[in-house]
């Protein structure tokens, strides 16, 4: 299968160029056509920065210093503005975490979706009214023609996120990047929005990169998963393999700290300590200070272990499957 998105050895830094803070160090990640990849990690692990920097949306002062980002055959690192504008919204649609903040409060939501269409297909906004209604129907907005005339503050959180998804799908992109798409929503709505995302990606054969800290979401919609810690990917692989037998102790910790569905099976374990902040990452394995199985060797950078077709960045990848966690 061909890769829609291929990030290779991406390094990102921010702040004063004379005293930069490294946010992402050497991330390689690819998304095959039609597959859904979950990028998992705690806050500050660099998962959002990796994606936003790749699309040139990370904001001022965030720079890619090394690496390559290829999207459908186009190199994005160092690409000029017209190329980036054509890619953003055209080849890749983006959904953000907070749907209220992500919509312009002064414009009707239909106009905002129409703008996304207009930016890539030209014409007047009014000419895209049918397309807007079609998109809103696609994401399950009831009474789409009327809702298109609403302002963001007049819609519920779930409806707003559906609008944001419709906007991301406006030009039938080959990749959808969703940054914590359900985190800001009520629990009852999360499942519905997740369903919309699944239909728009997996079911339509559209590739997606979903940034989340929610392993349940990954298990539900993703085919592949990449786990980030302190600006690096520490483990990646198919969701089935990684969830059944995580190799990296951090992945194991994450999976173990998920509440089990079966009651009374085991105590909920929580990882001790906190992830280190960008700028204070240790020379060796960044997870070593919290790792239950750390040894002397962990003070030096760990190698990538690719035995049995798996991928993890650890001195002694765990090979036994975990008990009590599916």
């Amino acid at each position, binding site marked *: 299968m061909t890769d829609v998105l291929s990030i290779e050895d991406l390094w990102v830094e921010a702040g004063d160029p004379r005293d930069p803070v490294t946010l992402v160090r050497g991330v390689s990640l690819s998304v095959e056509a039609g597959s859904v990849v979950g990028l998992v990690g705690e806050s500050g692990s660099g998962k959002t920065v990796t994606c936003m920097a790749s*699309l*040139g*949306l990370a*904001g001022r002062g965030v720079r890619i210093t090394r690496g390559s980002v290829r999207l459908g055959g186009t190199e994005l690192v160092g690409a000029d*503005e017209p190329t980036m*504008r*054509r*890619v*953003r*919204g*055209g080849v890749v*649609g*983006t959904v*953000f975490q*907070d749907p209220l*903040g*992500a*919509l*312009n*409060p*002064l414009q009707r939501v239909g106009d*905002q979706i129409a*703008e*996304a269409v207009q*930016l*890539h297909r030209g014409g007047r906004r009014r000419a895209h009214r049918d397309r807007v209604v079609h998109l809103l129907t696609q994401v399950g907005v009831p009474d789409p023609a009327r809702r298109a005339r*609403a*302002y963001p*503050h*007049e*819609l*519920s959180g779930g409806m707003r996120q559906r609008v*944001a998804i419709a*906007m*991301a799908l*406006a030009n039938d992109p080959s990749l959808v990047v969703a940054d914590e798409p359900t985190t800001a929503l009520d629990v009852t709505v999360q499942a519905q929005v997740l369903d919309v995302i699944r239909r728009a990606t997996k079911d339509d054969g559209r590739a997606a990169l979903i940034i989340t800290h929610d392993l349940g979401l990954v298990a539900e919609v993703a085919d592949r998963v990449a786990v980030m810690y302190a600006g690096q990917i520490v483990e990646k692989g198919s969701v089935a393999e990684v969830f059944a037998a995580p190799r990296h102790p951090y992945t194991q910790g994450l999976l173990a700290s998920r509440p089990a569905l079966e009651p009374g099976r085991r105590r909920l374990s929580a990882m001790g300590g906190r992830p280190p902040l960008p700028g204070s990452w240790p020379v060796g394995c960044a997870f070593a200070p919290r790792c239950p199985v750390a040894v002397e060797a962990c003070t030096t950078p760990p190698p990538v272990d690719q035995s049995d077709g798996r991928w993890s960045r650890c001195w002694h990848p765990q090979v036994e499957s975990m008990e009590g966690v599916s």
Partner: protein
Amino acid sequence: MSTDVTGVSPTAAAAGGAPARRRPRLGPVATTALRLVLTLLGLLTLLFFLVRLSGDPAAVLAGPSATSEQLEEIRTGLGLDEPLLSQYVAFLGDMLRLDFGESVFTGEPALDSVLAVLPATLILVVTTVVTSVVVGIPCGVLLARAGRVARRGVSFAMTLAQAVPSFVLGVGLIFVFAVNLGWLPAFGSGTPATLVMPTIALAAFAVARTARMVAAELEQGEDHDYLRTAYAKGASSRRVLWRHALPNALPAVASAIVVEVSYLLSGAVVVEVLFAYNGIGKRLVDAIFARDYPVVQAAVFVIGVFVIVVNLIGDALVRVIDPRTTRGSA
């Protein structure tokens, strides 16, 4: 005499008297009308006491050589011998009928003499507001988005415009453009050319304030997610600025400009006198110096009404720009 009678909302005070649970629900029109009436009442009360606190009008009118009989006669004639309360009631009655009396000197109805010069001031205020919007918004965009050198330059110009008082700027303008270059008339009113220098003198401060306001709003809104959304849709940074960032800065800027207009009137007093521009400010100052109290009262009343009307227009404008103020959440 103060012209600084901005539209302080008296609704809060008025509503506070009613029991919390059964507060009468008024429509927006009724609320606005009530606010207008209460603000006007406050203005008139202030006016009544200000005139009576600034000395004995009778003594001033009669002059230093008047006998006590003459003084008494004037007092009776003006109703100044009555108790304060009945004077107040009579005063309000006159105001209701828009009867401000006649100018002590010309005998012309005071209100008419003020209204005759009102259009001149309105034109000056309009040109000033238009200038502050047309020049201030681009300057604000430059302040927020331009390169370092341009930003420094604009920032310096704005600081200068805010620091130099309008009468100093006005004198400077007269010196350069009227005396040295002879391009513009130094004083007078009625022709477009006479508007140019008063507008510049009056607008300099407003331009700088508008620019700083726009810049502050743009900078504050810089990391709003909807701007990132616009970029993510494929919009250019120019489009993001003009279609998304700037419109969202406008409600705050519009409110600031409305407040600015109220202050502009006190500025207009100075500028009109300086350029001998025949507007309401000059009429007011002339009347104060001449102790022409009916005209003073009429001028302050008209300025007060003007400020109230501007505030109402401003509220309506913000409502038009920002849908969140009129349309409740679903």
